[in-house]
């Protein structure tokens, strides 16, 4: 009950955030230079046809009115039409979001699989050469601009060595997109039992996911190390050791589980950060995600698309925080009881 309440409180707290996001994204898009009416009127449009399009887009109204319209449409679940793709923003997003999510999640999985053990290793031997090597390694990863890493990887693994498939988005054109269930190709292909497509999708994922993983390893490894160090030096570890518990039990059941709390928080932050930041990776790998969508939309002053994107990200962020809270509550029984 207590926990349910605290989750509800979190949801309630998210409402002003979403409202804020709606307002800021509206203001931001209107502050963009450039006139979508002109842009989309086409190459040889004259004054009259521009005005016509402006009226059609509702851009001839004063800003507050436009905002009201926007909010009214939002309330009915209508995010508007993207001018640059010519699709309803909602359908654009629902098609592209799984692509971004799939990429980000796989990247984070790779990243965690490497960074968490590295962090634990470093924490068990603080100050040793292992520690220093880990630190240098992950720091190098985070120091490389993702687009640079991506291009280098393409150059080496696709262009020179030829191991990777052509960096053409989510699936090589030889394969047919699996039936859409979740939008995640790996899952959809597995559901359909089409392992050939599954493998092809995985291959396409490998390089972009690696690029992102390299970039996200550092915060995770750092936080794991710090949290492990803190956990290992706490009193209850001493109790566990004094009780004769085995080293692995002490390290994993006692220290690591406690250290996971801050790691989960970091992971959440990294996730939302990455989802926004894989714009560049998506561009390099022609990945049809929402990041590249946002860039195109922004450059084209495609109001509806930018607003829709930002709103989707904000909702995702809120949802993510909720998931983290729940994960936190699952790991840490103290959550929701602080006030007692």
């Amino acid at each position, binding site marked *: 009950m207590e926990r349910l309440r605290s989750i509800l409180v979190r949801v309630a707290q998210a409402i002003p955030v979403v409202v804020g996001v709606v307002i800021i994204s509206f203001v931001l898009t209107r502050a963009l230079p450039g006139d979508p009416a002109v842009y989309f009127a086409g190459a040889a449009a004259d004054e009259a046809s521009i005005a016509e399009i402006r009226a059609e887009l509702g851009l001839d109204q004063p800003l507050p009115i436009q905002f009201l319209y926007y909010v009214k449409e939002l309330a009915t679940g209508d995010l508007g039409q993207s001018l640059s793709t010519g699709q309803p923003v909602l359908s654009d997003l629902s098609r592209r979001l799984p692509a971004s999510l799939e990429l980000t999640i796989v990247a984070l999985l790779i990243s965690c699989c490497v960074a968490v053990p590295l962090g634990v290793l470093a924490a068990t031997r603080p100050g040793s050469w292992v520690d220093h090597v880990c630190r240098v390694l992950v720091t190098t990863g985070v120091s490389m601009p993702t687009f640079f890493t991506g291009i280098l990887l393409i150059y080496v693994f696709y262009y020179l060595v030829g191991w990777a498939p052509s960096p053409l988005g989510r699936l090589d054109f030889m394969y047919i997109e699996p039936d859409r269930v979740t939008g995640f190709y790996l899952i959809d292909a597995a559901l359909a039992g089409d392992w050939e497509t599954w493998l092809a999708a995985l291959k396409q994922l490998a390089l972009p996911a690696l690029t992102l993983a390299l970039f996200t390893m550092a915060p995770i490894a750092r936080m794991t190390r710090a949290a492990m160090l803190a956990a290992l030096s706490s009193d209850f570890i001493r109790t566990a*050791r004094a009780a004769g518990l*085995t080293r692995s039990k002490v390290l994993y059941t*006692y220290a690591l589980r406690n250290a996971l709390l801050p790691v989960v928080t970091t992971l959440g932050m990294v996730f939302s950060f990455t989802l926004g930041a894989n714009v560049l990776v998506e561009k390099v790998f022609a990945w049809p995600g929402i990041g590249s969508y946002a860039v195109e939309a922004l450059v084209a002053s495609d109001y509806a698309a930018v607003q829709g994107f930002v709103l989707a990200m904000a909702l995702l962020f809120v949802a993510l925080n909720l998931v983290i809270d729940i994960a936190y509550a699952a790991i840490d*029984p103290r959550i929701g009881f602080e006030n007692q």
Partner: protein
Amino acid sequence: MLSIKDLHVAFKTRRGIVDAVRGIDLELGSGETLGIVGESGSGKSVTSYALMRILDAGGTITAAGVTYGGVDLIKASERQMGDIRGREISMIFQNPRAALNPIRKVGHQIEDVLRRHNRATRSDARAKAIEAMEAVKIRDAEKRYEAYPFELSGGMCQRVVIAIALACDPRLLIADEPTTGLDITTQKAVMDLVAELIRERGMSAIVITHDLGLAAQYCDRIAVMKDGAVVETGTSIDVFSAPKHPYTQRLVDATPREGATIRRLLPAEARTPEPPHAPGITPLLEVKDLVKTFEGKSGPVHAVKGVNFTVHEGETVGLVGESGCGKSTTSSMVVRLLDPTSGQILFAGQDLAATPAQSFARDPRRSAIQMVFQDATDSLNPRHAAGRAIEEPLRRMADLGRRARAERVRDLAHLVGLPQHLLDRFPHQLSGGQKARVGIARAIAVDPRFLILDEPTAALDVSIQAVVLNLLVDLRAKLNMSYLFVSHDLNVVRLLCDHVVVMQNGAVVEAGPVAKVMDAPSDPYTASLIDAAPHPPVRKLAA
């Protein structure tokens, strides 16, 4: 049963090698309870960790021999040690809440040990764990099995820690300050429980404490440690009543107890005549119907519910009570760091509560009321050197030039007995006693008429406590200040105070002259407090 010969422990640190333990010899017979006492940093804990081989990385042990039941604990393999820990030798620690894994059910933590030492299988682990909990007198063990440490009180947690330690019936129990961090009343309950279990199971035990009184009460023999070495061992009665080593003598002297005067706490050579102390009769501070209610998340918390007391000119009033009874809240209000919900604080006839705490910093009466904090470390800004800390109130409240201020700081340091060369050290470079002196110097820098002392010696060793208490007595006489002395240590209150106010649950349950309240408490709560305080055997003063 356990024999320690020439045990050395050294740590490699940034500052070089620290010899924490330098050659200890100890013997412990089976069924015997050995107390190890000594001041902070004397190597008590390190010795016990060395026995268990659970030192931090960087610690190295060398010894001529540490044998336990024929096994050399220093040479034993890590696997052997794993089997010994928890099954043969167990440990319990101070601060029980921190000693338990915060996110694991206490029942599972007990199970972990049982399973590790094959005392239980998957199927009967739960039952055995509950059994172990019942053994340490945890009521509703079945229910508590599912609890997390944060859902249990401190005393309950300590029982769980004890249950973990005793789950596999070890033959030796090491208790490292098992009562520190607990309430006085809980302290007694826990110690009684430990003593009872030891007796029942015929275990040997090592009880580590800095409280000589406690050791004397519960142990057969006592070893006194100083600077990593044992300076004296003997039976409790002997060590207490006829200490041989000068250090032990000093330690015994410094332990507050019935019948001693405040100067008696100091080593003989430092005892100067006690200054005369004659409290006046004009009321300086009158607290009337003071109420403080906090808006907690789950409803209002009534921390202080209508407290009344008076402090006269030159008088020292003690404020005692269990943890959480509202002592600190009351003193914060009096010192105007906190606004009362209602009530009056009359200082020299003027109501201080009329000025909100927020703007009291600029009030001319600010300098008249000062405070010494419970935790000296916490009360010093880690970024400010000692001199700067003492200077702080002068900068803000005294109209002095730079040089005059520096001069005054030196005078104050001298007054509280702080060597001048320590003035430009940072807090972490000072010892506890030195930090306490800095705190006191700062509080008296602007010549307050009224000083609140919120457990100023709680974090200090007894010998340092003795010095600080005497310093307070001297200052009281020299500067003619009144004190409100907050403490939970009744022995200390008896030494220092003229009047005492006993609080429970935010209300005053008893007040009166110190001798009357202590000797003939009228309230049962007061009586239980007095009973729970350790009663060290009285040293033959003639010795």
